């Protein structure tokens, strides 16, 4: 084997499709594996003549296509039923028929794109854009009107002289040995070039941004932003007093708001009864709101022992005799009106939340001032105890 190390292969040209089919069949029969045929158009029957197996690309496409199906169905399920459920057209969150079109699209897209990428990755050894056969007379001939065959030097049976003789015997013309091209280094991958690309990209982006947004700013569509309606805080040309925002009619009550009848009275003669029952839900709501709004001053357990103690006129404990003697309505009244330095909490809490807080304060007071008889009371209620 006196093969030239730099040799890529031996090429031969044929005149018509029948000859090339015959040549391919003979070359395959002679035991060569690494050979290829170049023709100006796809010649029917070539796969069989060359002894090629069926391409495995179909399996790649099938697998990735069905991966797309699975992915998009799971994704649709997650987005539409778990992460951000939305009612659309009164359909269930996971409404299968609505997802079929996108499932179909994704299956086809993933199958198609992965096939193309797979083929490119397999057959074109990127980033090289060169091939030993490029820029040869052989390639020029087979791109025009000749049919060529090339037996590659990395075939185990390859011997330059033997192959040349074999191709001659088959009737091949213009038999050439083709050398591998000099190894390229890719100017595309040099740091200077990459820096240049980044600079150009930044420059173009910046110039585009400045031109479009600062120099010649054109509002693309203003149909939605400029409307005839009066917006908040705007001057009205219609009303004589020029107020764009109108006051509500006298006696208007906001939705969900109950007016408090004893508002502003320092010592009300009458107070309201608590409309809520001390259920578990109400006590939990009361606890939540108490911890948010009351505990910063009165302390977590209403002892008046918060961090503010000593920095301020001390917030009172709610366990004093006076506090315990207050009616529910009076505590509510204090929350609405405020007392001494305590401001009104009417705007921060709703009526229901205030009544819930009252219940919670009652629970705290009861807990702090427990009597021995209470223990016997607890024993009488095994069901509550078991909980």
């Amino acid at each position: 084997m006196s093969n030239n190390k730099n040799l890529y292969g031996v090429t031969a040209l044929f005149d018509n499709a029948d000859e090339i089919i015959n040549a391919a069949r003979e070359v395959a029969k002679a035991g060569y594996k690494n050979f290829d045929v170049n023709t100006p158009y796809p010649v029917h029957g070539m796969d069989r003549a060359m002894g090629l197996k069926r391409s495995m690309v179909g399996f790649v496409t099938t697998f990735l296509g069905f991966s797309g199906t699975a992915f998009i169905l799971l994704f649709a399920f997650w987005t539409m039923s778990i992460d951000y459920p939305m009612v659309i057209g009164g359909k269930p969150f996971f409404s299968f028929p609505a997802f079929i079109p996108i499932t179909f699209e994704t299956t086809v897209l993933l199958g198609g794109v992965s096939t193309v990428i797979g083929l490119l990755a397999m057959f074109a050894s990127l980033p090289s854009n060169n091939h030993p056969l490029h820029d040869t007379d052989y390639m020029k001939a087979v791109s025009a009107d000749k049919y060529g065959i090339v037996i590659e030097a990395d075939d185990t049976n390859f011997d330059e002289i033997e192959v040349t003789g074999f191709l001659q015997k088959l009737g091949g013309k213009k038999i050439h040995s083709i050398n591998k091209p000099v190894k390229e280094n890719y100017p595309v991958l040099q740091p200077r070039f990459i820096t240049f690309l980044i600079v150009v990209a930044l420059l173009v982006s910046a110039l585009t941004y400045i031109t479009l947004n600062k120099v010649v700013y054109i509002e693309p569509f203003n149909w939605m932003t400029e409307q005839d309606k009066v917006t908040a805080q705007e001057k009205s040309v219609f009303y004589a007093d020029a107020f764009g925002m109108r006051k509500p009619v006298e006696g208007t009550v906001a939705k969900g708001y109950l007016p408090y009848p004893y508002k502003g009275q320092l010592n009300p003669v009458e107070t309201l009864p608590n409309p809520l029952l001390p259920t578990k839900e109400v006590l939990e709501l009361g606890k939540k709101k108490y911890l948010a709004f009351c505990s910063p001053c009165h302390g977590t357990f209403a002892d008046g022992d918060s961090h503010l103690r000593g920095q301020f006129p001390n917030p009172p404990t709610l366990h004093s005799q006076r506090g315990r003697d207050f009616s529910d309505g009076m505590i509510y009244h204090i929350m609405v009106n405020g007392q001494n330095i305590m401001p009104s909490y009417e705007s921060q809490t709703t009526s229901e939340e205030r009544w819930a807080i009252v219940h919670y304060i009652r629970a705290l007071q009861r807990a702090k001032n427990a009597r021995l008889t209470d223990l016997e009371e607890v024993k009488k209620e095994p069901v509550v105890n078991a909980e």
Partner: protein
Amino acid sequence: MLNNESGYIKKDLPASVVKLGTVLFIFGLILGIVGFVIEPVRASYSYLVAFMFLVSIGIGSLFLVALEYIAGADWSTPFRRISEFLASSLPILIVLAIPLILSLHSLFHWSHTEVINEDPILKGKSPYLNSTFFIIRVIVVFGLWSFFYYLLTKNSRKQDTSGDQKLTKKNIVISGIFIPLFAITISVSAIDWLMSLEPHWFSTIFGVYYFSGSVWASLAAITLIVILLKDKGYLGPRLNNDHYYSLGTLLFTFTCFWGYIAFSQYMLIWYANLPEENFWFLMRWSNGWEYFSVILILAHFIIPFGALLSYPAKTNPRRLKFMSVWILVMHYFDLYWLAMPNLNNNGNGYIFSWVDFVFPIGVVGLLILIFNMNAKKYNLIPVRDPKLQKGLDFTLH
């Protein structure tokens, strides 16, 4: 007649084929008449399904013949005659439609004038949906199909003796005129015979739905017959795996096409959920019909899709044969699913009846007899067609 290029030698089909066809046809005919006497309404519905199946195979096959001419396809030329033979049921459709036209009142709600007068919707549709215009449409549509069948096959048969290449060109022109007319007429007959069973319902894609199923079934019939004849040596030795592969690919394509169309029809109605449209699907999703609907999705789309997806499935004649029979049965099932729920549209649901099984047997017998009659008279291969050689040499890669 011997043709050296194709290796085709004309032989008569064996006598057992005639026997089988005759037995099936007579069996179907007699029991069909009995059915019409015992259960006239049920029988007219069952007969309608069988009739539409025959229409599917006939017009679908003629469409494939025309498609071959207009697309310049050569791979299917060696077995174009089989499509032509299957299309030869078209001229007798008008005769077979007579029992249906006679039982118009039991089939079609809109044919009762007293009902129409009370129903403003049907009244609005009555300029189109009335008995006279219906019969005119039936005669015109079947007449047109028979006319084009006659033109296309006459030229094709003449070529067997004369070998005149101009006849192919003539047929290309005829096919060009036929295909747009086909698109209109198949929609008209699908709407007339099947959609108007429920005259309040409407679906603009219905014609395409019927088209997809009918071409699918025709392809299956052709595939089945090609494989049977090839195995028995009637078609000559030159057909190869690539022919089977192409037939299998078309079957697969039309499986997907039917699924696409059927789902398009369903999804729009499901999404809008308008009471004037959705009741048609609700009818097929209640009272026992829901099982039919589920079977339709599985066996009409998903199973053929999986079974025909791979290369070996499309080239293995035995598997292809099995799938062809499967597809023919499923197309019949599809038509049954379209028509039969309207029989009890007051909510009675599905009721079993032996009458439904009689007519398909008769139709299969009739198709065998028609095919055999044609095979006796004409060559099974268009022996002097200019595209025949290319068709026989057909390879994919």
